[in-house]
């Protein structure tokens, strides 16, 4: 197992290093002068030149890349051009919104999807199964921002139970924070739950057709007992894979939901930084997200190995 983990860690480090090169190179190629953008159309050329100098944009490319990497090892991702504050601090402020949101959405999605998937699989072909599959198909097809708008109209405007959006910060209280994140989490979770329940259903159905289930049934177990004791654990691999992908998506890809609910999350930070050409923030945040995805995949791999001991041996 430790060999397996070591190999995985090495590939994680190499991936991250490659990511820094790609991120930096892409942003070098993108046209536009951040200083000119900040000072606007009335700015004099000497004011723009001074600002370029202050932002360190006049240094050679390689120097800037190396100082970025060097800073990173000291936990310094540079300073935002526009906000002026450290990038690490900006990411920190946003992650306290994005991470709980992603976790809540994942929890809601799993809490819905796994029971639904099991239920549908155990009644495969029945009217209930068909109905569930139709609903999940609908759930996948409908974009999450549309769910979000419906939720806002009903719970925020009509019932006024929760705010229509915004996030006042955790220092306003845990309850207030959760109230703000509840609708966005539900809106994010529903389409994910639809996908996950379909995956869970088909994974279980596939496992139910395996020989060892037939053996278990022949041994005298009921269908339910066989499913519960033998099929579930074996059906978990595809489910965990999808959950890992979903978690990465929920953290990084929520820009639309963040906009609908005007939440100060990572997605909006990146988007805003890109439009303002705030290079340190784009670099830092994208790298952080890449790191996050890589680490999630690493954890998913470890989980596989834990679920299925055969993978540990194969990995050696």
């Amino acid at each position: 197992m430790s060999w397996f983990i070591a190999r995985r860690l090495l590939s994680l480090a190499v991936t991250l290093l490659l990511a820094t090169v790609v991120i930096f190179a892409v942003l070098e190629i993108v046209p536009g002068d951040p200083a000119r953008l900040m000072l606007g159309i009335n700015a004099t050329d000497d004011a723009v030149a001074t600002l370029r100098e202050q932002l360190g944009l006049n240094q050679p490319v390689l120097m800037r890349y190396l100082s970025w990497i060097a800073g990173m090892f000291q936990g310094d991702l540079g300073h935002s051009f526009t906000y002026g504050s450290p990038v690490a601090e900006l990411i920190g402020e946003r992650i306290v919104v994005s991470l709980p949101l992603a976790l809540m959405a994942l929890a809601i999605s799993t809490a819905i999807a796994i029971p639904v998937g099991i239920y549908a699989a155990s009644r495969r072909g029945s009217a209930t199964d068909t109905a569930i599959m139709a609903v999940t198909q609908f759930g996948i097809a409908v974009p999450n921002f549309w769910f979000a708008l419906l939720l806002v109209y009903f719970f925020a405007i009509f019932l006024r139970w929760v705010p229509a959006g915004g996030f006042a910060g955790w220092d306003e209280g845990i309850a207030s924070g959760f109230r703000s994140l509840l609708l966005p989490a539900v809106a994010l979770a529903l389409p994910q739950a639809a996908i996950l329940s379909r995956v869970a259903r088909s994974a279980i159905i596939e496992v139910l057709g395996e020989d060892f289930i037939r053996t278990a049934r022949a041994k005298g177990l009921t269908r339910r007992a066989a499913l519960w004791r033998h099929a579930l654990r074996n059906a978990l691999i595809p489910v965990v894979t999808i959950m890992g992908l979903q978690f990465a998506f929920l953290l990084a890809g929520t820009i639309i939901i963040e906009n609908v609910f005007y939440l100060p999350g990572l997605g909006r930070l990146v988007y805003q930084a890109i439009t303002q050409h705030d290079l340190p923030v784009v670099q830092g945040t994208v790298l952080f997200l890449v790191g996050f995805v890589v680490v999630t995949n690493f954890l998913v791999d470890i989980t596989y190995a834990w679920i299925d001991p055969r993978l540990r041996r194969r990995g050696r």
Partner: protein
Amino acid sequence: MNYVKTGKILVSLAVALMAATVLSPASAFAAKDNIVLGVALEPPNLDPTSNAAAAIDEVVYANVFEGLTRIGPNGEVLPALAESWDISEDGKVYTFHLHEGVKFHDGTDFNSEDVVFSLDRARGEDSTNAQKGLFKAIESVEAVDPSTVKVTLSSPQGGFLFNMGWGDAVMVAPESAATNNENPVGTGPFKFSKWNKGSSIEIVRNDDYWGDKVALAKAEFRIIPDAAAATSALLAGDVDGFSNFPAPEAVPQFEADPNFALVIGSTEGETILAMNNKKPPFDNLKVRQAISHAIDRQAIIDGAMFGFGTPIGTHFAPHHPAYRADLIDMYPHDVAKAKELLVEAGYADGFKATLKLPPPTYARRGGEIIASQLREVGIDLEIIPLEWKQWLEGPFKAKDFDLTIVSHTEPMDIGIYANPDYYFQYGTDEAKAIMAKLDATTDTEARYKLLGDMQELITKDAVNAYLFELAKIGVWNAKVEGLWTNSPIQANDLTGVKWKD
């Protein structure tokens, strides 16, 4: 335990969790002395002397920071930190008499030394002030005594008092100037309180303010970039209003609702179809006149702006007293006349050109309408959408364009027509002469006359096709009063805002 039961338990747990979070009490209603205003863009920082972003002034102007003068709701120059001033006979020396007993929010005194510091900083060698041009006429700034400042100009500048009212010319203290971007310290009636980045900015009443205390104890600017979210936030009562409501398509909903006040005003945003006056065929007056005739302004306003906007015939704000309303009739929408002018110019079969469009709706949607209007007279436009940074590099800086659409939101910016290096490259000697005379004139009536002459000149020469003035769509709770109708300067001046009983 079987799996169905597990499912049921999980579902009921989820429901219980939702109910628990949902049912915790909402914020209690107290006597209203606070306001939550929505803003579409988050300011990049809070120092108005550092960056061109209007979003900065929309939070701090007149609220947190004050200048020597300030711009009032109708574009007039009002005294601020300077209670009065004397102007020398030759118009070159301005002596400002400052209010006494003024303190910055950090408790330090405001006096003439701070004025010297602020102005020297803004015009200095290493200044990165986005409007450095405002200060270029200043030759020296001297503190005569703690409450008197003498500013000497190299040549008379009639608009100097107006310039000193810009957000970029506010007074800052040497102790706090470097950190104003994160923690703004001004002299205004509100103090900065906190900034939840990406979410909201809060300011609170300054109880040590030198002037009249403001009615609001607290104001929050909540950042809501999405138009649909802005509508929901108003309907749900999460925000009390938007000075610049970003969703014109949702306006009828609020118009019909007595709980909301809908206030349509105008801004300083002259939206123009800019033409490259140095590049053939746009260097030909007849071609520019043909384009001016080919444009149907109202169709653009209706199609691109949901009907919000005032047609303009020149580059000047229609709410300003010096605006020449008659100039709109110089080039009425007339397709036949436009074709005739093209024939005279030698383009009987029309020509091809490009139309570069920055991201705002007025440009992107307006551009499509203009392309179809110009096609009617035989001009075939290729539309090229650009990001802002590409627009600044290309059309604006490198003058690499044929036609482009942009809104000039700076107040009183007709002077750009006297600058031959400005992107549309007009700046004739005649224009320069009028602007020089304007600078040398301090009498208001005479200035208005000169501004009128300048408008007539740039209309006659059809430098650009002048389309419309951007509207300011205000939607707020009907019980709120004191928010500005127009925006002669980009600001959300909250000093006169209060709740009606």
